[in-house]
């Protein structure tokens, strides 16, 4: 600080403003990495939609066979089907990005050594396979 500025403290009419350019609202279209980021973020909407769909399914099953058949008929409607196909693509994208990120979020030490990232990713994918097999068994085999 120079002495000059210290001599004139307090109010000035023309106080400095930071030059900060506001990024464009469409900043996420500028690069592929940004687009991947926003795609992953948008998976949240489709997860919310699926939970609503799941709850409608649960309600139909708990009300009896007639409402379950009604639900199945509704689920064949093209709009619902397309929405579910899009949802599937988004949630698979979410799952892959989530499991690939897991080694960065989880630091596991075994016997004083840090487990390599590939081991943590692999165990996450193994859990995914196991969870998938369990759901299939529960719904189809049981």
């Amino acid at each position: 600080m120079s002495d000059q500025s210290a001599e004139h403290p307090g109010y000035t009419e023309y106080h400095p403003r930071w030059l900060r350019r506001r990024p464009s609202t469409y900043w996420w279209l500028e690069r592929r990495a940004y687009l991947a980021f926003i795609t992953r973020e948008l998976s949240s909407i489709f997860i919310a939609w699926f939970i609503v769909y799941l709850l409608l399914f649960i309600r139909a099953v708990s009300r009896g066979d007639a409402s379950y058949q009604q639900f199945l008929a509704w689920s064949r409607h093209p709009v619902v089907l397309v929405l579910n196909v899009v949802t599937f693509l988004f949630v698979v994208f979410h799952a892959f990005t989530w499991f690939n990120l897991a080694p960065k979020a989880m630091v596991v030490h075994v016997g004083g050594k840090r487990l390599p990232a590939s081991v943590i990713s692999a165990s996450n994918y193994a859990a995914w396979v196991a969870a998938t097999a369990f759901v299939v068994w529960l719904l189809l085999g049981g």
Partner: protein
Amino acid sequence: MAKRSLEPILWLLFSAGGVVSALLVPILVLLLGIAFPLGWLSAPSHEHLFAVLRHPLTRVALFGVCVLSLFHGAHRFRFTLYDGLQIKHLNELINLFCYGGAIALSLWAGYLLWVVP
């Protein structure tokens, strides 16, 4: 005493929900939303599904999946609006919409799973 922030809890729900939804939602959408409607696999009988749904463990697990996934989605959507559209001045409204929606749907999930006959 300093006011405690809710943020750590919201982030914890976000990551727990992220794991649960990554593990279970893809196969559930594939079966319930695509394979059964298109007839790739014949839909299970009502009797079988009802037996599965009636089990208390199923209902507790489904409640957990719903609540965690909803808070995961709400948290992520909040930041999508925040970063994507840069509407920081609407923060309170966004929070109310996202977490309020998650709470409302969680209550609905709890009610539906509670009243299964």
